[in-house]
C-alpha cells in the first residue's frame, strides 16, 4: 500500500500493525459487536485501524476528518463507540464535543505528522508499556457488524447505515468476478473512507494482493496534481465519483502523461454528464469504463459498461445498467407492486449485500424496507427508474428530497435544519438546481425573522461551521416571503420557478 509522499507499507507490516491494534483492543476489553471509531485523514494509519478493528471482532466507524467536530462527535456518541483513534490536532475539540453529548470513549491519540505510520509508535509504545499478549483474530460470523457508514439524514442528524461481514463479502466477491484483479494491479483509493466507494477501494485490492494507492483529500480534488499521480503510480484500476473525472478531462492535461497501465475506470455516486465522459474517453481511449450504481445501503447494486466510442450526438446519460449477480432488483409502483417492463417505478433491492438497517432508528428502518406478498424484505432505494428494452435500468430521479453533489449524498432537509438554528432565520427552503459545470448547485431561500437583515457571507460561514463543505449552499436568496402550499408547507415547486 502506497501513500504517495508519505511512505508505503507491505502486507506483512499491515498484518503486524493491525495485529498490535487487535491485541490492544482485546486488552482493553473490546469484544465482538463493539464499535470503534477513527477520526484520521486517509493514510496508512487509517487502513491499519480498519484491519485492527476488524481483527478484534469490532465494527469500524469512519468519519469525515474535514467535517465539524460536533458532527463527528454526534456520530461517535450515536453508535456508542468504545474507543476512537484520533489525530492529535482533532483530539481536544473532539473530547470537548463528546463530553457535551455525554459520551466518553477512550481516545487513542496519534501524532499529526512525522514518520508514517504514526500509529506504529503508539502501538509499539502500548505493547511495551502494557506487555500486551498476542490475541487471536476474532472469527467473525456473517451477521457480525463490520462497519457503520453515516450519511446525511433528512431529520437534520446523520444516520448510520449498518453493514455486516456478509454485506461486505458478498459485494467484494461480485467485484472479484466482474473486475478480475490480480497481484499485478494497482488500484486507486480516491474516495474518503466514510464513503461507501472505499469498500471496493480498500478491501478489493487487499483481497487479491494488489497494491492500493491512497490519494489524500487535497490531491484528490486537484486535477492538475492528480493527473501526473495516476500516470506516475501506474494505476490500473481507477474508481471515483464522476465529478473528479470530469475535472481531469477538462483541467488535467491528460495528453501529457502515459496512462498505458490504466485498464479500467469505474465511477459511481452521481450521473456522469455525457459531454465530459466523451472527452475523457477521447483522451483515454484504452480503459474499459463502468458506471456503477447503488446507495450506501446496498453498495453497488447495478452496473453498466459504457460502450466505446460514445457517439458525438449523444447527450442522454448512460443507464445505471443491470442488477449485480449477488442481488435481486425489482421496479415497483407506489403500492409496492412490480410494474411492467418500461414503466416508471421505484427500484427496490434485496440480497446478501443489503443492509440490515440504520443504527438505532427503528422508524426509519420500517420506512426503508418493503415487504412483498411473500413477506420478503426489499430495500427501497428511493430512486425512480425504468427498465429499457435492453434490460438496463435507466435512472430518472428521486422520490424524496435527497440529492447527489460531487458523489456525496445530501438530504436537503439537513441543510434546512442547520439554517433554522440561526437566530435571525424565520423560514427556509433548500432546493437543488441542475448546473452544467457543477452537476447540481444547492440554492437556499431564506426568510429573515422580523426586520433582521441576512448576509450571504455570514450564512455561508454559519453553515461551514456546522456542515461538511459540500453541503454549504452555493446560492442564497432572501425573498420577503417563501411560497407556501395550501397546507402551509414550503412550496418547493414554486421555489424552483422563482
Amino acid at each position, binding site marked *: 500500500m502506497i501513500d504517495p509522499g508519505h511512505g508505503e507499507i507491505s502486507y506483512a507490516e499491515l498484518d503486524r500493525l493491525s495485529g498490535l491494534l487487535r491485541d490492544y483492543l482485546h486488552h482493553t476489553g473490546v469484544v465482538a459487536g463493539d464499535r470503534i471509531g477513527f477520526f484520521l485523514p486517509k493514510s496508512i494509519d487509517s487502513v491499519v485501524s480498519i484491519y485492527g478493528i476488524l481483527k478484534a471482532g469490532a465494527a469500524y466507524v469512519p468519519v469525515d476528518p474535514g467535517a465539524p467536530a460536533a458532527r463527528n462527535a454526534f456520530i461517535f456518541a450515536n453508535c456508542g463507540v468504545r474507543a476512537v483513534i484520533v489525530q492529535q490536532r482533532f483530539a481536544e475539540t473532539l473530547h470537548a464535543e463528546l463530553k457535551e453529548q455525554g459520551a466518553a470513549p477512550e481516545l487513542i491519540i496519534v501524532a499529526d505528522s512525522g514518520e508514517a505510520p504514526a500509529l506504529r509508535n503508539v502501538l509499539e509504545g502500548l505493547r511495551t508499556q502494557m506487555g500486551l499478549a498476542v490475541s487471536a483474530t476474532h472469527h467473525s460470523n456473517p451477521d457480525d457488524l463490520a462497519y457503520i457508514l453515516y450519511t446525511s439524514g433528512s431529520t437534520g442528524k446523520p444516520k448510520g447505515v449498518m453493514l455486516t461481514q456478509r454485506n461486505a463479502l458478498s459485494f467484494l466477491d461480485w467485484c472479484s468476478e466482474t473486475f478480475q484483479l490480480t497481484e499485478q494491479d494497482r488500484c486507486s483509493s480516491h474516495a474518503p473512507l466514510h464513503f461507501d466507494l472505499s469498500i471496493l477501494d480498500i478491501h478489493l485490492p487487499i483481497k487479491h494482493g494488489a497494491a492500493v494507492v491512497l490519494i489524500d483529500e*487535497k490531491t484528490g*480534488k*486537484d*486535477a*492538475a*496534481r492528480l493527473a501526473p499521480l495516476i500516470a506516475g503510480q501506474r494505476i490500473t484500476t481507477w474508481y471515483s465519483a464522476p*465529478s473528479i473525472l470530469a*475535472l481531469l478531462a477538462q*483541467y488535467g492535461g491528460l495528453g501529457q502523461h502515459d496512462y498505458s497501465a490504466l485498464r479500467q475506470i469505474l465511477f459511481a455516486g452521481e450521473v456522469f454528464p455525457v459531454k465530459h465522459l466523451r472527452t475523457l474517453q477521447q483522451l483515454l481511449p484504452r480503459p474499459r469504463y463502468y458506471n456503477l450504481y447503488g446507495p450506501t445501503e446496498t453498495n453497488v447494486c447495478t452496473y453498466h459498461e459504457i460502450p466505446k466510442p460514445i457517439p458525438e450526438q449523444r447527450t442522454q446519460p448512460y443507464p445505471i445498467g443491470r442488477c449485480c449477480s449477488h442481488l435481486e432488483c425489482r421496479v415497483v409502483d407506489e403500492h409496492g407492486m412490480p410494474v411492467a417492463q418500461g414503466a416508471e417505478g421505484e427500484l427496490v433491492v434485496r440480497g446478501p449485500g443489503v443492509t440490515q438497517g440504520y443504527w438505532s432508528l427503528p422508524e426509519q428502518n420500517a420506512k426503508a424496507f418493503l415487504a412483498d406478498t411473500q413477506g420478503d424484505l426489499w430495500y427501497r432505494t428511493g430512486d425512480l427508474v425504468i427498465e429499457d428494452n435492453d434490460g438496463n435500468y435507466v435512472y430518472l430521479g428521486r422520490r424524496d428530497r435527497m440529492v447527489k453533489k460531487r458523489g456525496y449524498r445530501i438530504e436537503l432537509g439537513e441543510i434546512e435544519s442547520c439554517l433554522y438554528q440561526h437566530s435571525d432565520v424565520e423560514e427556509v427552503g433548500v432546493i437543488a438546481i441542475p448546473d452544467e*459545470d*457543477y452537476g447540481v448547485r444547492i440554492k437556499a431561500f431564506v426568510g429573515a425573522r422580523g426586520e433582521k437583515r441576512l*448576509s*450571504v*457571507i*455570514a450564512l*455561508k*460561514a454559519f*453553515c*461551514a461551521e456546522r456542515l461538511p*463543505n*459540500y453541503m*454549504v449552499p*452555493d*446560492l*442564497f*436568496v*432572501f425573498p420577503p416571503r417563501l411560497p407556501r402550499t395550501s397546507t402551509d408547507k414550503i412550496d418547493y415547486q414554486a421555489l424552483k420557478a422563482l
Partner: protein
Amino acid sequence: MSDVKEQVKRFILEEFLPGAEPEELTETTPLIAGGILDSLATMKLVTFIETTFGIKIEAHEADEDKLGTLRDIERLIQSKR
C-alpha cells in the same frame, strides 16, 4: 483596497456570492474556511487570476494558506509579479 484586490473581489462576488453585500467581503473574510470557495470554485478562481494577472499558480499553492483571504491572494499575486 488595492486594484489587484478589487479585481479579485469583484470576480468572487460575481461568480460565487451573487446577492451578497460587497462591503461585507473584506480582505480578511475567510474564503475557504467560510464556505465561499469549494474545490471547483478555487480552480475557477485560479484560472481567473492566471489569465488576468499573467502569472502561473502552482498546484501546491492553490490552498487555504495562499488563497484563504483576499489579503493572502494579493500577497500571492504580488510575489509573482
